[in-house]
């Protein structure tokens, strides 16, 4: 299949590339050819129209002039009118998109008035004529906003023309009647100049539309051919690859172990009816490489099928027996293990009972020892506390006495305060006395001088008394506050001591209770200890019996284990064989 896909991809790519190239080259050449054709058509149209005008100017107009005389008939005498009339008579479908116009910058017929682009073109032709070249121009040019291919020939003003288009007064009478000078632009042409031209134009888009149409046709043809080619390739490849694919399928089935599927496939290929079997039959008639290969495969598949069927049957029987044995052994082992676990649990429990009761017995012994120690210590503590209580009671008495003495000191200090007041009174009177003395001395004049000195000295003495008295006062105040603080501290201290005595008494009482209780406890401890030891001995005996039982059970379990291992090994061998053979799917065995 993969090879076929590759072939298909390569063929398709090649064909598509070829078609695209062919279409591209075709369109390039077609475009050029088309343009050349159109240019040719334009040229033919232009020169045909010029021929019409020349014929009108040289043949018809002189005859008409002879017949009409001074009058003027446009239909007979105007060359441009004739040319425009002829072009109008060409059917639309035969014009091939071409336009014709006799454009003029000074037209008599308003329909001929040159537009902006045409005026420019006329000026270009005029310049060519002045330079002495032929007034012809062809090429691509914008006309009315559309890209056109244009071919133009300038009309040089000849004397024949000037008769009607030159100065109005020289124009024929009929002409002036028909086209009054004031309303007409056709007069005033300059001699030997180009002021009008015949212009043929075709829009480029019209040409391109034709080319595009042609391109589409060529592309459609390419696609059609390509499709036919691909169908052909596919058919051819199928014919080659189908037999190869079938042989591959059968080989894959055998490899996967599906011997039944492989022989069915081979049979279906060799039986008649369908188209593929016809092909196989054709191959049998005239055997080629694929036919021989199919036959060999067929024989090999039948042989393998019968062999594998026999092996599978034997394996199933062995496996069934081994499984039954293993199940029995597992049951037996489970029973033994259950027994061992039960024995173990009993043994552990009795061991724990033994250890715990041993520990408890020890602990009880220790507690009993500690309790009797505590009783001794408590007895000693009680004695100490009694002594302490005695000492504290004496301390309370001492502090009370001390407080009383401090209070006495405080009273005395208060007395000193009142003495200070007396001193202040006396000192103040001394000061007053000295003032009066000084005043008297001043009044005594000369005699009082000495006295005034004495008065001053007295005042000084009073001042010293004042300072001393205040010193004492400060000291007393300091002492009083110190004493007050002392009294307070003493009160606090004696309160604490009193509380201490109470607490000590309380603790002593509690210790007495503890001693009594502890002494009651001792015989009870002894009873507990004996019970514990009895329990411990019983537990130990149970433990020993269980240990013996446990050993027997362990031996049974070991023998069973060996037997189980053997069946497991057998089973494993059979399973290995079966899994190998199971890969083959056998039919009809």
């Amino acid at each position, binding site marked *: 299949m993969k090879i076929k896909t590759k072939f298909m991809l390569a063929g398709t790519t090649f064909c598509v590339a070829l078609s695209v190239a062919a279409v591209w080259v075709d369109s390039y050449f077609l475009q050029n050819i088309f343009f050349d054709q159109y240019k040719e058509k334009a040229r033919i149209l232009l020169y045909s129209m010029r021929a019409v005008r020349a014929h009108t100017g040289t043949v018809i107009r002189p005859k008409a002039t002879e017949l009409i005389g001074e009058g003027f008939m446009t239909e007979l005498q105007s060359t441009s009118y004739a040319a425009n009339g002829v072009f109008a008579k060409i059917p639309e479908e035969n014009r091939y998109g071409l336009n014709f116009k006799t454009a003029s910058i000074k037209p008599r017929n308003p329909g001929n008035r040159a537009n902006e682009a045409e005026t420019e073109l006329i000026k270009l032709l005029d310049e060519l004529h002045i330079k002495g070249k032929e007034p012809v121009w062809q090429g691509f040019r914008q006309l009315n906003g559309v890209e056109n291919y244009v071919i133009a020939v300038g009309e040089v003003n000849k004397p024949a023309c000037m008769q009607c288009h030159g100065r109005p007064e020289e124009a024929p009478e009929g002409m002036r009647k028909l086209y009054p000078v004031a309303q007409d632009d056709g007069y005033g042409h300059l001699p030997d100049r180009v002021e009008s031209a015949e212009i043929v134009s075709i829009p480029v888009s019209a040409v391109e539309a034709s080319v595009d149409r042609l391109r589409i046709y060529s592309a459609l043809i390419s696609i059609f051919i390509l499709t036919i080619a691909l169908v052909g390739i596919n058919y051819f490849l199928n014919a080659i690859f189908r037999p190869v694919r079938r042989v591959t399928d059968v080989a894959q089935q055998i490899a996967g172990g599906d011997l039944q599927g492989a022989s069915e496939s081979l049979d279906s290929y060799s039986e008649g009816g369908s188209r593929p079997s016809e092909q196989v039959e054709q191959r049998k008639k005239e055997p080629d490489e694929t036919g021989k290969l199919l036959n060999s495969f067929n024989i090999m598949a039948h042989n393998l099928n019968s062999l594998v069927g026999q092996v599978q049957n034997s394996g199933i029987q062995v496996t069934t027996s081994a499984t039954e044995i293993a199940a029995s052994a597992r049951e037996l082992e489970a029973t033994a293990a259950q027994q061992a676990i039960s024995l173990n649990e009993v043994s552990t429990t009795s061991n724990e009972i033994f250890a715990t009761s041993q520990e408890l017995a020890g602990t009880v012994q220790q507690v009993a020892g500690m309790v009797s120690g505590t009783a001794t210590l408590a007895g000693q503590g009680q004695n100490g506390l009694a002594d302490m209580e005695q000492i504290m009671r004496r301390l309370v008495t001492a502090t009370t006495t001390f407080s009383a003495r401090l209070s006495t000191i405080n009273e005395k200090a208060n007395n000193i305060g009142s003495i200070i007041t007396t001193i*202040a*009174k006396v000192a*103040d*009177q001394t*000061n*007053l006395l000295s*003032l*009066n003395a*000084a*005043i008297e001395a*001043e*009044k005594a004049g000369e005699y009082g001088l000495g006295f*005034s000195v004495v008065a001053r000295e007295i*005042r000084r003495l009073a001042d010293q008394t004042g300072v001393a008295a205040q010193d004492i006062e400060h000291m007393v105040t300091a002492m009083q506050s110190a004493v007050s603080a002392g009294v307070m501290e003493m009160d606090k201290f004696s309160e604490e001591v009193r509380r201490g005595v109470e607490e000590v008494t309380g603790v002593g009482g509690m210790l007495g209770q503890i001693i009594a209780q502890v002494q009651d406890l001792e015989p009870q401890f002894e009873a507990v200890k004996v019970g514990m030891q009895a329990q411990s001995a019983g537990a130990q005996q149970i433990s020993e019996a269980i240990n013996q039982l446990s050993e027997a059970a362990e031996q049974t379990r070991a023998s069973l284990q060996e037997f189980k291992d053997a069946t497991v090994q057998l089973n494993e061998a059979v399973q290995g064989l079966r899994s190998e053979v199971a890969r083959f799917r056998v039919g009809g065995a």
Partner: protein
Amino acid sequence: MLLLIFFVGKERYGIDSRKVVEVVPVVNCKPVPHAPSHVAGLLSYRGDIVPVVDLSALIGGAPARHLLSTRVILVKYVGADANEHILGLLAERVTETLKCREEDFKSPGFVASAGRYLGDLYIDGEGMIQRIVVEAVLPEELRRSLFAEAEKVADALSAS
């Protein structure tokens, strides 16, 4: 001359000692009804009835505190009637005298009409001392009414 010093608040004032009869401790005074607040009352001095002016109240606006050093300064007072009376001046911290020369006093420059009793200034190392003009302590009208009251009380005493 000798100045008797007293205090009003922290300020020192002085009285010429020649005007002073005697200095006595603070004593009980009999109040005078309807008198201004700086009139402390009347006191009995060696048989005379003497009106007492509270200098602390007069100068400082607050009545004198009754301390040991608060004293009554008894001064000779010659009023507009040319009679000599005794007037009591109650003052705080009367404990010191100061020797000074008359020519060292300086005029304060500005005198409020209500403070005519405040006289010259004396400057020592501690600051300024203002002298009290004893005659100007009592305005004429108050003087008359006070001494009339004093005589009334004295008559009542002698009658009883």
